[in-house]
């Protein structure tokens, strides 16, 4: 069924269709519309879940540990300061191999305080052992959360997953969305069966102390699981495409008009939509340009990036984040992926921090300066 709805509603419908039973949550702008819709679904009897109205994001993610560990599919959502407050516990969720799914309405981090969009919050959580999937549209937000549960719960993965959607520029925007039926989603994402859980009939100890003789093995296993996720994300995307008729590239990355391109922009989130328009515009002028949309930031698709950038003269990497004193995170990652294996020039662009508009002109400037090879701030 096709409807015109807010992306937050689409994101919430995706959650509802995935049937989580526990939703610990704490409000923060611009995530609130998502949890408000979920509260309505619960109170209208459309979703059989309990919302735990915790007293902080730290407790939201902690309560999520408790419910997921007890054997129940669990969802939460946050943004910005909330994600930063969760930071300590994010590592614990992944370390305990609990497939919690969370939507992050991307927002800048204080100070100065800003409620508007950039990716500093989730990029700062890069090394927490969570899968990170960035979406471009309301439809993709809905579809990706359903996929995120399936990916996270896969027995070869068992890691938590974040679905990142741009605060305001996506969360508060109305778009046409095709809402899949519950029957079809149930076929795609069956009832949750935990790999292990707290059960008085079969007692286990979760979260013990690891001495130096075992700690690295735990981290090694997690790293392997994250690498396994590369394959599982692709397979899940294919399966989704077969069932619902929609897919997002190979699940990890998506390309646009890249086939005969000499130059391309690489970006995540809503900048992708603007970049599509710019690519079309420049193509009309006869310029051989294309677009690489990175959906999976963690795990990072090194092989796929190498493959699609092969033969490109230069790429412009757009970062809505900044590692102060260095450069944008995506720029670093792309350069590291290509190092020693590619002659493509990689240029970095810092744009759209704290909600600054990234306009068509901003993307055009990136193409103009695509051969610079360093980092440029586009204000």
């Amino acid at each position, binding site marked *: 069924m096709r409807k015109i709805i807010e992306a937050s509603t689409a994101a919430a419908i995706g959650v509802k269709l995935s049937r989580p*039973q*526990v939703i*610990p949550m704490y409000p923060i702008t611009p995530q609130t519309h998502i949890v408000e819709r979920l509260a309505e679904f619960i109170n209208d009897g459309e979703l059989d*879940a*309990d919302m*735990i*109205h*915790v*007293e*902080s994001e*730290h*407790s*939201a993610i*902690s*309560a*999520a*540990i*408790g*419910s*997921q*560990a*007890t*054997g*129940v599919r*669990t969802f939460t959502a946050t943004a910005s300061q909330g994600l930063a407050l969760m930071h*300590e*516990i994010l590592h*614990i969720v992944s370390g*305990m191999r609990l497939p919690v799914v969370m939507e992050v309405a991307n927002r800048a981090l204080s100070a100065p305080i800003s409620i508007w969009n950039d990716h500093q919050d989730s990029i700062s959580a890069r090394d927490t052992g969570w899968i990170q999937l960035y979406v471009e549209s309301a439809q993709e937000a809905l579809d990706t959360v359903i996929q995120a549960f399936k990916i996270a719960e896969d027995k070869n993965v068992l890691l938590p997953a974040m679905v990142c959607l741009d605060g305001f520029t996506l969360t508060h925007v109305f778009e046409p969305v095709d809402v899949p039926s519950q029957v079809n989603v149930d076929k795609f994402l069956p009832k949750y069966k935990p790999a292990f859980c*707290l*059960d*008085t009939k*079969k*007692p*286990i*100890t*979760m*979260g*013990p*102390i*690891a*001495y130096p003789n*075992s700690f690295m093995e735990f981290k090694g296993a997690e790293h392997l699981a994250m690498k396994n996720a590369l394959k599982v994300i692709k397979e899940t995307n294919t399966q989704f495409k077969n069932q619902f008729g929609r897919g997002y590239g190979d699940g990890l990355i998506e390309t646009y008009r890249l086939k005969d391109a000499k130059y391309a922009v690489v970006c995540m989130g809503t900048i992708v939509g603007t970049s599509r328009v710019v690519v079309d515009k420049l193509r009309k002028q006869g310029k051989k340009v294309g677009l690489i949309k990175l959906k999976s930031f963690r795990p990072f698709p090194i092989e796929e990036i190498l493959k699609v950038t092969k033969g490109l003269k230069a790429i412009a990497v757009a970062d809505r984040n900044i590692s102060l004193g260095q450069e944008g995170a995506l720029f670093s990652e792309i350069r590291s992926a290509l190092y020693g294996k590619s002659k493509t020039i990689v240029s970095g662009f810092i744009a759209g921090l704290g909600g600054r508009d990234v306009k068509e002109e901003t993307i055009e400037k990136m193409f103009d300066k695509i051969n610079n090879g360093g980092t440029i701030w586009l204000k």
Partner: protein
Amino acid sequence: MILGLSEEELLEFGHNACAGCGEALAARYVMKAAGKNTIVVNATGCLEVFSTPYPQTAWKVPWIHGAFENASAIASGVDIALEKLGKRKNVNVLAFGGDGSTFDIGFQALSGMAERGHNVCYVCYDNEAYMNTGIQRSGATPKYAATTTSPAGKKVPGKTEYAKPMPFIMASHGIYVATASIAYPQDLTRKVKKALSIDGPSYIQIFNSCPLGWKHKFNLGIKIAELAYKTNIFPLYEIEKGIVTISKKPVQKTPILEYLKLQGRFKHLGEKEIKEVQESVDAKWEKLLKLEETKMGF
């Protein structure tokens, strides 16, 4: 059954606690009272460290540890998940924390859990300082006690503040509250059973000394717990629906000096400080008696 306590050990022997550890004994009693249909959520601290050196575990019940400050929040999640699974009626949920975890870093989560009314019994193993990190001052450390961060110096004689009145603070949430001691196991287990029989949150604070932190002889833990009760520095009481009931009253009050002199953490105290501690203990005891007598609710 020995003294009315189950002989089954759900916190098994062979763990790594120090000789004379009061917390290990307290947790053993709590588990005897709770029985095996129990899920334990443990905050970071000695108990978690000494009982679960991977790949070993001393726990014979499902047990989970997340972080220092979030046992109450994890337990909230366990509570609601059990509800959704239809298992809530048959399973107890216990949350364990030391005094640092309870009084200080985990206080917000604990208050939130109590306010939301989760069916969780929170047990605070109170040894009056951060023992796991090496005896640092906490919000539960008594005035004048020497710790590594409140040392007995030439100018400042140990900690300069009194402990936070945690049982009263928790009672103000309108929940069942009890204090207990390792010197009185039957009283302790009765209170745990009562807390678990209540459909809602409860808070139990157990007095258990740390021989290393308090600098007392390893065989004196029970003696000191007994003196804590007899001197009224750690009274045993319950607060139910806001009403205080003192569990038992010492027939004859023992001077506080008898309690203080067995512990190295108080050895620097002079007459003036001892007198002040005595007066404070007396005033708090009088207040407790009055609360009981007048049935003034929290």
